[in-house]
């Protein structure tokens, strides 16, 4: 059978539905939608009278599926396969290698290990996305402790761990390190908090074969730089080292250099603020480096040539140099033509500088920057970067006196972008002005768009063309591949009709973030009649009542996760119970006053409106909530 399989391996990117014809040797079975045509081809071949003669008589369908299942990696396909019959369920369980839990509270650690004992890799997410924007209490939850303990006791094949927006302690890291030792190849503490450099040291000390170590955007206590030194002493396998957007101050450039020298496979390094001139040795040693982000430029009056002699590794093609200004920019010019990814979010470039640089990067595939790129920069992008696949335009400074001149993106830039960069798959942009026409052109030209996010900034009181009902409809109809969609406007930005369009015309969208859309509960009800595949819904600043939200949730068939901030609360606060149902957890973060430091250094109490969080769970209600989180218990 193995020989048969290898000669018949036909990968297919389209989903197929195949049935076997009835025959005495193979019972009729319906094969669920699978990514590979392999299975259906195998089974049909087994039906083929000529091939039947040469196949081994003891081969059964079950044997085939055992061989085939490992090749099926898409989780949705695995999900379908596991529903066919008990045997297929078992085979899927035994051979599943990776699981992503979009919310760690949807199940329990022991359920995970019981069902998938041979997991190689897990990704768990904790806090709601809003935590990245400082909206969620720090101690909200998402503790990795029970999961780490389960890994230690019951997941002996685990090699890769990714925790995102979770709380991790030094003890957790120590337990994980000692449980997996050299088997652990990848650890990603992605926007996590709660640990210190002691925990990192433990990981590095016990897990000598780490290939990926990531702490991007995590917050932790830095006691010393020993963890990096330990890595420099004993690791030769490292491929990815990432502590971008962290505040390490006690690390040593010499250790970075040693790591670069010892780890011949080191391809991606992202660090925090670090004077670039101290990295010269590192860059010389990291001969296979392809990606670098971080560092820091510190100009000196009287030394204009300070950074002019900086050279970079020959394969470097993904770059993001923090605080890079127009004077330093030319050091990229010698290899600009090979740059595929550029991160300018933390650079100090003006619109003109963007135009100059972008023109030199015809092979750019990924660009991240602030809105200082301006409409002019987007026009240049549309003209020069035909291969662009991903674009993120962040919100720059808007404090008066501190903002970038020309630092605005509007419909003008969007139209130029849509017409010019037709390979775009991901687009996230903060705009200062918008029109229906610009959204229409996105729908017309960007046929590959899978992920579209638009935020309308609140600086300008008058927007050229609101509401955006027709524009968003055209966009959704045109961008057929859209799976993720964010639309964050203001009052008057979208009528109830426009909101109904979003529901009606998003057949494939799995995740939505809607801000200040619609006018009344009617709009939400109409919206909820659509969205057939919507799994995760986030809403902010909307005018809907508790009652309408609960009713809408019950109508959206695939919805498994809801987050809302800003809504019309009921007088009793009990209307949310209208969406009570088995396995549906409902939690509230009631309105709070949070002391915060504003731009002027003054401490003010900021109002934080209430949040609703609701999700399907097999784990029952949470038992580890902080005081700020209230579980809506069964009445």
């Amino acid at each position: 059978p193995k020989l048969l399989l290898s000669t018949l391996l036909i990968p297919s990117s389209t989903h197929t539905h195949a049935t076997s014809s009835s025959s005495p040797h193979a019972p009729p079975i319906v094969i669920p939608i699978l990514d590979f045509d392999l299975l259906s081809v195998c089974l049909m071949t087994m039906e083929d009278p000529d091939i039947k003669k040469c196949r081994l008589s003891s081969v059964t369908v079950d044997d085939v599926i055992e061989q085939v299942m490992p090749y099926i990696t898409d989780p949705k396909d695995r999900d379908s396969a596991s529903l066919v019959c008990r045997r297929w369920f078992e085979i899927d369980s035994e051979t599943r290698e990776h699981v992503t839990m979009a919310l760690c509270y949807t199940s329990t650690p022991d359920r995970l290990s019981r069902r998938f004992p041979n997991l190689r890799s897990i990704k768990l997410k904790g806090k709601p996305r809003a935590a990245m924007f400082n909206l969620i209490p720090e101690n909200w939850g998402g503790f990795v402790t029970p999961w780490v303990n389960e890994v230690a006791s019951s997941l002996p094949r685990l090699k890769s761990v990714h925790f995102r927006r979770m709380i991790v302690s030094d003890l957790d890291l120590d337990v994980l390190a000692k449980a997996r030792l050299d088997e652990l190849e990848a650890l990603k503490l992605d926007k996590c908090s709660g640990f210190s450099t002691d925990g990192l040291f433990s990981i590095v000390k016990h897990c000598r074969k780490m290939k990926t170590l990531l702490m991007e955007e995590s917050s932790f206590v830095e006691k010393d730089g020993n963890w990096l030194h330990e890595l420099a002493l004993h690791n030769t396998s490292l491929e990815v080292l990432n502590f971008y957007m962290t505040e390490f101050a006690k690390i040593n450039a010499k250790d970075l250099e040693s790591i670069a020298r010892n780890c011949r496979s080191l391809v991606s390094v992202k660090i925090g603020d670090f004077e670039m001139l101290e990295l010269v040795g590192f860059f010389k040693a990291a001969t296979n480096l392809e990606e670098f982000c971080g560092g820091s430029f510190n100009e000196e009056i009287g030394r204009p040539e300070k950074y002019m002699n900086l050279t970079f590794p020959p394969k470097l093609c993904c770059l993001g140099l923090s605080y890079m200004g127009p004077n330093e920019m030319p050091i990229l010019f010698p290899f600009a033509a090979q740059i595929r990814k550029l991160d300018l979010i933390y650079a100090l470039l003006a619109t003109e500088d963007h135009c100059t640089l972008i023109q030199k990067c015809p092979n750019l595939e990924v660009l991240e920057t602030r809105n200082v790129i301006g409409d002019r920069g987007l026009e240049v992008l549309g003209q020069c970067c035909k291969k662009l696949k991903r674009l993120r335009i962040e919100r720059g400074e808007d404090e008066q006196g501190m903002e970038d001149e020309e630092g605005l993106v509007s419909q003008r830039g969007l139209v130029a972008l849509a017409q010019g960069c037709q390979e775009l798959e991901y687009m996230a942009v903060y705009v200062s002005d918008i029109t229906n026409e610009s959204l229409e052109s996105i729908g017309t030209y960007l046929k590959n768009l899978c992920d579209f996010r638009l935020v309308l900034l609140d600086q300008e009181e008058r927007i050229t063309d609101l509401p955006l009902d027709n524009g968003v409809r055209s966009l959704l109809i045109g961008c057929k591949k859209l799976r993720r969609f964010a639309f964050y406007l203001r009052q008057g930005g979208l009528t109830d009709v426009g909101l109904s369009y979003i529901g009606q015309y998003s057949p494939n969208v799995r995740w939505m973030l809607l801000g200040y859309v619609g006018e009344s509960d009617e709009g939400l009800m109409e919206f909820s009649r659509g969205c057939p595949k919507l799994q995760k819904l986030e809403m902010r600043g909307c005018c809907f009542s508790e009652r309408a939200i609960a009713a809408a949730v019950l109508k959206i068939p695939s919805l498994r996760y809801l987050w809302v901030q800003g809504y019309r609360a009921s007088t009793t606060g009990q209307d949310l119970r209208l969406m009570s149902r088995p396995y549906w957890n409902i939690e509230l973060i009631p309105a709070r006053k949070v002391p915060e430091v504003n731009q002027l250094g003054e401490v003010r109490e900021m109002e934080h409106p209430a949040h609703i969080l609701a999700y399907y769970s097999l784990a029952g209600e949470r038992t580890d909530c902080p005081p700020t989180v209230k579980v809506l218990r069964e009445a």
Partner: protein
Amino acid sequence: MSRVTTELDFFGLEKKQTNNVPKPKFKKFLDRRRSFRDIQGAISKINPEIIKSLLASGANHADSSTISPSVPSTPKADHPQIPISPVQAPLTMQTEHSSGTVPMTIFYNGTVSVYQVSPNQADDILKVVMETAPKKDKSIVKDHSVIPPTTLRTKLFGKNLEGDLPIQRTRSLQRFLEKRKERLVSISPYFPTSG
């Protein structure tokens, strides 16, 4: 050519002379920055006739006819000027531009700002002021060389349009913008610790 400006106390500053407790320089700078945000509302309180007379006399007046002898309470030396700031003209020597623009000085709430303004542009300011509902004037906004769009942005006083739910930034972006601000301030020629 000696400086020719007419200084008019639009708001009766002499009554509002701030006390002489020296504020930290950065805070003063921030006060000034914050004042831009309030200027839209402030301008609406100006008697349009005053602006008209200022402009009319702008090109050919002989002496400064100051109504108020009060000195701006933020001395020039303490005015950190930001390279990207729209107000780049130093407050001392100013010459009339050949394009016909003259300095327009606005006193507000203890701070001083100066813009090179042509009569047309000043007219536009006037129009903005005189309309009952504040509106963004596109002709001014587009002229980056003189009047920065932000000072005429019709933003409500201190509040954004969403009230309690402002659009938030990610933490790393916020931190970066704070560091950027520190850099911009520290390289200003007026900041005492910079080169």
